[in-house]
């Protein structure tokens, strides 16, 4: 391997890593606020890519059906809870939040049926379509067991992932998709051809990480989320609803996942089940960051991207083995450094 190949691999690795950064940050965000390790998170990214691809060809994306089904289910569950709590006056609000709002983007798709939209509109629409999935899943699956232990929530999340993959095949079909490149400009820097797409990915990742930082540091809502993450009971005492915080965390994280889905769609072929591996690799990054630290997670995710890129050069068949295998030394290091602390906070 000479320096040129190394540079190309490094560039590739950083681009992949940048995508994992966005998903990894989302993982940490959801986990911190809701204590759910949201395994199906990678699926959200894959679904965005698939949605974008269907919009590109003018077909109605499968997301519409998925969101509609989830919205109806969530509304039924919410109405049932409200009626049981003797609060029928809240029904219209539930109707708005769980049925009308999630289905707004779907109606937009309905009206634009047949016509092919411009690229920015397509991207915005696919993001809007995918956004409600995670909060609706939260309402249907996780809200009833919000006080369960982390391990139980994790088990449910793993099961949910398999349900979503099956539904993904049902709604999106088995074909793999690759969308049009967002840009096909190329630059030459010091004898190296740099793809503008790569720059875009890295740029987007940096911008959104920075925005997330600003959000947490300087807005009231961001501080409320942080408060929920630190202590749920304490947050309730100062008037923050953990359930609402959870929904916001899911929305924000879905946005991150959606953006990474849009970014990854032109550079890799995405299938209905591609999300799991993308998500799990981001996860390895999040574990390097101990599921708690945002900067360490970002660093870990870039590391995973680099490792994957170099591994695919040396032993392309074993790149998955290498990427998941890296977790073992990482865990060894983690277990030596903070095992005792982890065990004590297993269930809050």
């Amino acid at each position: 391997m000479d320096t040129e190949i190394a540079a190309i691999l490094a560039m590739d690795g950083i681009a992949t890593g940048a995508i994992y950064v966005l998903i990894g940050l989302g993982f940490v965000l959801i986990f911190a606020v809701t204590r759910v390790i949201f395994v199906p998170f990678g699926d959200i990214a894959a679904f965005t890519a698939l949605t974008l691809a269907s919009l590109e060809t003018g077909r109605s994306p499968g997301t519409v059906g998925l969101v509609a089904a989830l919205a109806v289910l969530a509304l039924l569950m919410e109405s049932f809870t409200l009626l049981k709590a003797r609060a029928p006056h809240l029904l219209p609000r539930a109707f708005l939040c769980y049925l009308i709002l999630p289905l707004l983007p779907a109606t937009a798709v309905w009206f634009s049926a047949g016509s092919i939209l411009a690229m920015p509109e397509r991207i915005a629409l696919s993001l809007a379509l995918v956004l409600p999935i995670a909060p609706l899943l939260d309402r249907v699956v996780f809200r009833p067991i919000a006080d369960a232990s982390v391990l139980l929530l994790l088990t449910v999340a793993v099961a949910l992932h398999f349900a979503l993959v099956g539904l993904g095949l049902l709604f999106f079909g088995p074909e793999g998709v690759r969308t049009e490149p967002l840009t096909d400009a190329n630059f030459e820097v010091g004898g190296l051809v740099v793809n503008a797409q790569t720059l875009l990915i890295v740029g987007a990742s940096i911008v959104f990480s920075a925005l997330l930082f600003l959000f947490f540091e300087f807005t009231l809502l961001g501080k409320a989320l942080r408060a929920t993450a630190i202590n749920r009971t304490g947050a309730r005492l100062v008037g923050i609803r953990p359930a609402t915080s959870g929904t916001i965390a899911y929305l924000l994280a879905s946005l991150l996942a959606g953006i990474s889905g849009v970014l990854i769609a032109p550079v890799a072929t995405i299938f209905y089940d591609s999300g799991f591996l993308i998500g799990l690799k981001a996860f390895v990054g999040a574990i390097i960051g101990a599921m708690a630290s945002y900067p360490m997670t970002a660093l870990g995710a870039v590391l995973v991207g680099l490792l994957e890129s170099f591994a695919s050069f040396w032993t392309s068949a074993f790149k998955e083995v290498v990427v998941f295998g890296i977790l073992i030394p990482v865990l060894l290091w983690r277990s030596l450094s903070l095992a005792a602390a982890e065990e004590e906070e297993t269930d809050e």
Partner: protein
Amino acid sequence: MTRFQLRLAGCGAILLLALAPLLLSPFSITLLNYIGIYALVALGLVLLTGIGGMLSFGQAAFVGIAAYATAWLTVKEDCSPWLGLVLALLLTGGVAAILGAVTLRLGGHFLALSTIAWGLAIYFLFGNLAIVGQFNGISDVPPISIGGFALVSSVSIYYLIWTVLVAALLLAANLLGSRQGRAIRALRGGRIMVESLGINPFRIKLATFVMAALLSALSGWLYAHMSRFVSPAPFDVNVGILYLLMAMVGGMGHLLGAVVGAAVVTLLKNSIQDYLPIIAPGASSQLEIVVFAVLFILLLQRARRDRALRIEVSPIGEAIGSYRGRISRPPRAA
């Protein structure tokens, strides 16, 4: 039940099992074979999760290591399946010991997550290693033979599978009554309590982990020589979660729950495969996963509050929830 009645029931059950091939159709015997093979893995999970309080999504990988070890030795090196059993147990035990030594110091969800990761790594290893046939797998695995009699038919291997399973159940029951077994049960009381009793929690965890892996290895060995073919698919992580489902359905707190759970899930899977093509033709194999996943989620949601559900699932909620030995529930959040 008194001890005598218990023994009587046990003898009756064994008698019924022995007579089953005379009473049931060959297809039912094949189903029973699968139930027995799955129950071995589920038994390991009951020990590991239900009694020891550690959650693993990766048991399917251990089944796979054993199945591949014996298939490779018997097909490529032309050895006896019994040597294959030795290799399968050694290899699986070794891998489990290494993985356990690295990951078991971690608490709760980190351990569970790491089982997904190494489960996937091992699955991809099967799919890409040339000497085990990559994604094509290894075919023409020879049957097990006892004293020159080859166990080819499903009835003949049925006796072997269920003998192994009953033996494993008895051994596990004896183990739990022993000093070591009480130490395993104490694990759920939390690290501090275990240590104050003079038990090294890490050693006991590692022993339980390796034991669960060895039970999976037995299952993998039987599977390889029963189906006479191994490929990576049955050792994927989604099968690992199916094993977990079996252990949970059966009731995490009881050894026999492993058998009940394996039976319920296997029969359910079979009837889903029968009926789904009628309800939704075309997409049935994927819908099967959806149905199982949804059932699993419902089970976990219900299990926590509805103890009257009678499928003693609550132990899982409890096993998972009381990792530190806390029985009282935290206040409702929403």
